């Protein structure tokens, strides 16, 4: 078992790999002559080094190439996004839309109407010849637009993250 410190083990492995500089090689060979423990460790590491050198390439099936060529046309890119995550995302979007819709219908945003008066903003007078217009701001309208956008997002999530991967997997299993 290992009785040598890690740096010496690394040096011994580099020695076996032949990746030591000449002076490092001389140093470790001197140490090896002096230490029985180190020689034993070198033998242990050499044993595994030679065993690993016997590793050979594994042989795939004889019709491997034909099988690959047969699969080329039936390939459909699998979504890496798990369906379960898609369902959670869709549920989250729908819950958010539901909560905001409830708030809108209960009139929470009814009082969010205001007018943004651009003349109140401190702008350099030399550039402004005429009074600036006032812009009406309707919070309820903005929230409704956000709800519609979220419904669009929910539809996209349903299509891309749930339905498409589901039917792809079904096609591949049949």
């Amino acid at each position, binding site marked *: *078992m*290992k009785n040598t410190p890690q740096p010496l*083990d*690394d040096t011994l*492995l580099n020695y076996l790999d032949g990746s030591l500089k000449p002076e490092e090689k001389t140093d470790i060979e001197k140490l090896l002559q002096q230490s029985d423990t180190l020689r034993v460790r070198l033998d*242990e*590491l050499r*044993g*595994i*080094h030679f*065993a*690993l*050198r*016997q*590793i050979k*390439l*594994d*042989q*795939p*099936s004889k019709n*491997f*190439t034909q*099988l*690959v*060529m047969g*699969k*080329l046309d039936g*390939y459909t*890119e699998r979504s890496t996004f798990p369906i379960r995550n898609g369902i959670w995302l869709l549920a989250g979007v729908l819950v958010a839309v539901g909560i905001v819709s409830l708030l809108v219908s209960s009139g929470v945003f009814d009082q969010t109407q205001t007018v943004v008066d651009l003349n109140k903003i401190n702008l350099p007078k030399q550039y402004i010849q005429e009074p600036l217009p006032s812009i009406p701001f309707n919070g309820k309208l903005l929230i409704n637009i956000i709800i519609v956008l979220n419904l669009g997002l929910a539809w996209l999530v349903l299509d891309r993250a749930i339905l498409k991967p589901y039917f792809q997997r079904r096609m591949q299993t049949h």
Partner: protein
Amino acid sequence: MTNEEEFQCIDRILAGDQQAYTVLVDKHKYYAFSIALKVLQNRNEAEEVAQDAFVKAYHHLSKFNREAKFSTWLYRIVFNTAISAKRKSKPIFQSIENTIVEYNPGSEGTLESSDKKKYVNQAMAKLNEADRTALSLFYLDEFSLDEIAAITDSAANTIKVRIHRARQRLADELTLILKQEALTL
């Protein structure tokens, strides 16, 4: 087949000559299968994964930027596909730290080379897939540390450390087996 010839073959495939891909599959199937097998430790799954990786590589061939060798790019796809398959099929990782290689005390005499190979394989199976793949690619003598690093998506220094530590673990395991054998004599 040189890199240049491979690039010409890829050009033909991209131009619509699908059959030209057989040349690349024939050339790289052994390494692709070996990498998948090192990760998955199951021949059927490895075969399936290696084939899927070739199909994936074919459909993404236009994204191969030719800065690296085609083999490095392909084997990285094989490695990643195998790792994904491994995670789906067997999420539990067994560390070599807390396991002992099975030793059969029925076999008497010195540790024969076939026994040694068997024990090395058993010990290898207990390494994690990245260490096992790095070690195998290193000893197949085909790849530089940089290429192994690119295939396994690690830094070259990390790969070097991994290979060293994996060999130390294997050496310790084999020494343990030899000691157990000596006790039965």
